[in-house]
């Protein structure tokens, strides 16, 4: 267990024009590709399995195991799809990575596609981030020109086509099966499972869908070995990862550290909560993960540690809120997001988020009683685990966890006849030293 930063993915972000092939190659970029092409694909899958790499998109499913599910006797083509539809509120790790070092991802894609014997790979990027799309497109072009992509890559006999696909801006398309529908040109809505994508995914063919950070981690594992990767992190959550600190924190940004670091350590590195204020609540991995409070400052930020604390590691998007923030207001804003982004396919999420927003809006104005809190919790109970996909589940997390930790604050709204907070004080442009 280490408490220092371990820049691997972000190691070259400060290099001159780090997004260019030249810059990336100067730092040893694409060496791992050459190593990988000299290996058997199956050996690469074993290497990633041995490393203990788990999916960085939120669920933490072991990456190597996912690759192993691809039925190699299936006559259909196999596909690798990179989920770069980063849309979770608070989450901002993949986009900086692709901005600063798109070649890390491209190299990871080539190695991963080779491992699962795919000859076609896609990077599905959310459409709003045009600057990122352009960087990726340029990087892919450079990789083609350098012979890293295309036919017979470096004489290995292996062919790979890589397509950067821009989504149309829907949160649901980060859900992997909705992403596949969108990629196929349909409306993005989650698919019925089974069949699982590993068996019948893109164009009903075996498909691996991985998060950007997962795939970008692969070259470093090939370069340095599984045991190197496993030397970082905790027993079941191995390796380094990007923690994204945002909100009421002195130096927000990406902090690449071993899994298992604590928020207290990260806040120390980030200069602490903004001056003159104290931590009130925070999300461990975006708004879909139940909020935590100051009492959880020493929870190890790995899959098991955060799970034991009643939340989820998620995307490691640490949104930090100080005591000026009205939790009801914050939760309402998040819930409005889920209402806006619900795809509409299933009843609990579609109608439930519509109702939750109206109820919360009423409560924020102080027009409610404690009975409404019970109704609100029961609404969440009827959505969590009842909706078609995890979007509905995520929508309930901020509500149930905020009532768990801050019931009094909800009640204060009723007693006050409205929000007792000054919303201006929680803004980052509020005068320093302002207090609630």
């Amino acid at each position: 267990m280490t408490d220092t930063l371990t820049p691997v993915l972000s190691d070259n972000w400060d290099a001159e024009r780090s997004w260019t092939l030249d810059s990336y190659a100067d730092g040893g970029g694409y060496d791992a590709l050459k190593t990988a092409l000299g290996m058997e694909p199956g050996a690469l899958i074993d290497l990633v399995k041995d490393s203990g790499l788990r999916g960085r998109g939120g669920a933490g499913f072991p990456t190597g195991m996912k690759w192993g599910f691809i039925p190699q006797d299936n006559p259909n083509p196999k596909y690798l799809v990179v989920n770069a539809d980063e849309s979770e509120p608070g989450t901002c790790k993949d986009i900086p990575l692709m901005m600063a070092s798109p070649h890390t991802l491209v190299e990871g894609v080539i190695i991963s596609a080779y491992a699962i014997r795919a000859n076609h790979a896609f990077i599905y990027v959310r459409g709003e981030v045009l600057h990122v799309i352009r960087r990726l497109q340029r990087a892919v072009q450079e990789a083609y020109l350098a012979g890293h992509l295309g036919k017979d890559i470096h004489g290995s006999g292996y062919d790979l086509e890589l397509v950067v696909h821009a989504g149309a801006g829907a949160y649901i398309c980060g859900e992997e099966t909705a992403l596949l529908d969108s990629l196929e040109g349909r409306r993005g809505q989650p698919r019925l499972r089974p069949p699982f994508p590993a068996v019948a995914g893109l164009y009903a063919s075996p498909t691996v869908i991985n998060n950007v950070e997962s795939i970008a981690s692969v070259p470093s594992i090939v370069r340095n070995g599984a045991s190197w990767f496993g030397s970082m992190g905790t027993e079941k959550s191995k390796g380094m990862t990007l923690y994204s600190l945002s909100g009421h924190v002195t130096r927000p940004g990406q902090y690449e550290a071993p899994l298992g670091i604590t928020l207290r350590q990260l806040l120390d590195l980030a200069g602490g909560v903004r001056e003159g204020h104290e931590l009130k609540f925070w999300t461990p991995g975006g708004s879909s993960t139940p909020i935590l409070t100051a009492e959880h400052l020493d929870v190890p930020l790995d899959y098991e540690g955060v799970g034991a604390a009643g939340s989820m590691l998620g995307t490691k998007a640490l949104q930090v809120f100080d005591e000026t923030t009205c939790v009801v207001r914050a939760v309402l804003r998040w819930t409005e997001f889920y209402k806006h982004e619900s795809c509409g396919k299933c009843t609990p999420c579609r109608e439930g988020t519509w109702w939750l927003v109206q109820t919360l809006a009423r409560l924020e104005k102080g027009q409610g009683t404690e009975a409404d809190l019970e109704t609100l919790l029961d609404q969440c109970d009827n959505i969590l685990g009842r909706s078609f996909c995890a979007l509905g589940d995520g929508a309930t997390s901020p509500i149930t966890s905020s009532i768990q930790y801050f019931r009094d604050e909800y009640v204060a709204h009723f007693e006050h006849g409205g929000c007792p907070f000054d919303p201006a004080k929680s803004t980052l442009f509020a005068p320093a030293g302002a207090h609630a």
Partner: protein
Amino acid sequence: MTVTSKEGQEVAKADLVTLTIDGVEVSVPKGTLVIRAAEQIGVQIPRFCDHPLLAPVGACRQCLVEVALPGPDGEPRTMMGPPGRVKPQASCTLTASEGMVVNTQISSPIADKAQQGVMEALLINHPLDCPVCDKGGECPLQNQAMSNGRGETRFVETKRTFPKPINISAQVLLDRERCVLCARCTRFSEQIAGDPFIALIERGALQQVGIYEKEPFESYFSGNTIQICPVGALTSAAYRFRARPFDLVSTPSVAEHDACGSAIRVDHRRGKVVRRLSGEDPAVNEEWITDKDRFGFTYARQDDRLTHPMVRDEETGELRTASWPEAFVVAARGLQAAGATGVLTGGRLTLEDAYAYSKFARVALGTNDVDFRARAHSAEEEAFLASTVAGTGLGVTFEDLEKVGTVVLAGLEPEDEAGTLFLRLRKAARKGLKVVSIAPFTSRGLAKMHGTLIRTAPGDEAAALEALAHDGEVALDAGGILLIGERLAAVPGALSAAAALAGTTGARLAWVPRRAGDRGAVDAGLLPSLLPGGRPVDDAAARVDLGTVWGTTVGHEPGRDAAGIVAAAIAGEIGGLVVGGVDPDDTADPAATRAAIGAASFVVSLELRATDVTQAADVVLPVAAAAEKAGTFVTWEGRQRPFGKVLVESHALPDLRVLAGIADELGTPLGFKTVEAARAELSELGGWDGDRVAAPTVSTGSTTRESSTTDGDGLRLATWKQMIDDASMLDGDDYLRATGRAAVALVSAGTLAGLGVEAGANVTVTGPGGSATLPVGVADLADGVVWLPAGSDGINVNRDLGATAGATVSVEGGAA
């Protein structure tokens, strides 16, 4: 709802899985969904998106149940979800498996609460307009809200609203705020009808059914979406706000618009049909009917409906109302005086009525001059029907189409001419059936069946059929079926070639006529050379067989066919005509048919509504419409589809009762006066096991036509009737008619270029008898062929061009 998967066959034990539902052990076939396994033990799990004939989607989440699966130790382990919580599963997407333990709302408080939660969510945005909603009283949402919902809502906020309603077609209306977004309608349109012109758009609670504005929701099957809508979101312009379901009497019946015999449910009130729905019959139409079968019933109560018998006044020469006894007497005396009499009927008779005409002609009029074919026909066809169709009973069935590898269509456009057959073919095609069509172009229907076109100009079908025997691509064998449309009667050699092809390849053959009464008429002997049950007129044993039941002798000379009767009437060889439901414009030569009616000295017309025939007739006898009588339609399969009288208060007389009245006055009683008695006599008569007529062997004549599809400067005419067209049986429902496809003349791109006009511009098509102007379009026709709908947008090809399929016409750009 029906389960068609196993067709009632016994399932081997190895193909069963045993699970426990609410403590009751039940064995179901592998692959059965939990929601249907529960039905087996009488447990109804509430549902909206689930439909047994649509692919599972799991969208509404109403059918959540608690499920446990056996672990490695065999002990059931409950399926869990987000940390530490039981995760109820959607029973409409979950397949039953061995050892599964399911607890529904009956035995699981968790499942019950989950269902109530979903129901509450469905209702928050659902308007409380049940008192004015068409679905009120028969609404799955209303019913299941009562059975599986909370008594009181906790929603006190604002409901989502939309402007209401919007037209998604001329007939189908959408109230978006009532919609629960189960996607049954969109899935039906995509999966069953193949007309995906409606789709879900927008997202979240603003998701809604939308249309593609450039392509109207033009589907022959759109009414099914209304019927399967589990709420009142989809309504028909025809029925909206017309009735409350609990005020209606529902009677099962059989559709009268085509030869498919679809099961329908007729809802009526105070002697008036208010609407029709699809019945459920897995063997025939499953749960779907065409829009024609659904909405086409107002023809029976148009202003021109005949209500009283009429006779021509001797002094004024005008038709005047008469009593039934007077009309019978006048008819009988007139026919006696007229001498030789021919009988022409259309193809819309029930089997019993057809039998009455058949017997009336032979017994009361003493003639074999009887024919039901009010369309192009031939002696070859008669031989084909006698040899291959008449009295053969149930042959190829709807279900057979799903079991074979190849179906060849010839002279048949199922989407237009037999809609239920089209749906079954499409269903089979989605599972791998190869459909091959001998037709002039790739119709929309053929494309939806993913079919293969054997491009054939009209007249060349016989050669195309002959060539199929050696076609390695189609490779027709005993695992194939030939579906032959009635239109091939107009092509010399085609029916002979079809019979020969079936013989050489072993493929099974079925004749698919257009009208509901056609097959029954063949079975009842409404042909000049054929007696009931497929008995040949010129077979002494057959005549004796019949004479035993009829107690009389039957003429041994085959009579005249319809064209022969018309010609004989014009020539004065026949004085009397008995005409039952024939529209002269349907016949191959409308002018000749009119002339024959004018020339005949005495015409008796049995009709529903005033027509050209009734105006010229000497005695007009009003008869009962389908809903006003009992009867039997025989489907193209040969399946008897008996139905009872729907409008029991109606006093309208079926044709057979009217014929019996005339026969009595002629002194030659028919021996029955009711449908039941006619049915009993038919049954007593039984089938014919004697010799049959040999199949026709007319040569194709392809040598003469093969030379070129362009006959001189003209184009060869291809034509058939579209499903929703100017047919008189669609009169009265303008919304339905508005959903029909517009009349467009189709030509090849090459031919269009020669015309010097753009697609969409008007062209004038001229035949021997006149011309018609309509827009032109492009299809993959052979050069030198033009296709016209036979009776759409006021253009009747027979009447206006004086031409039938295969004739040579000319086409010019611009209006005439």
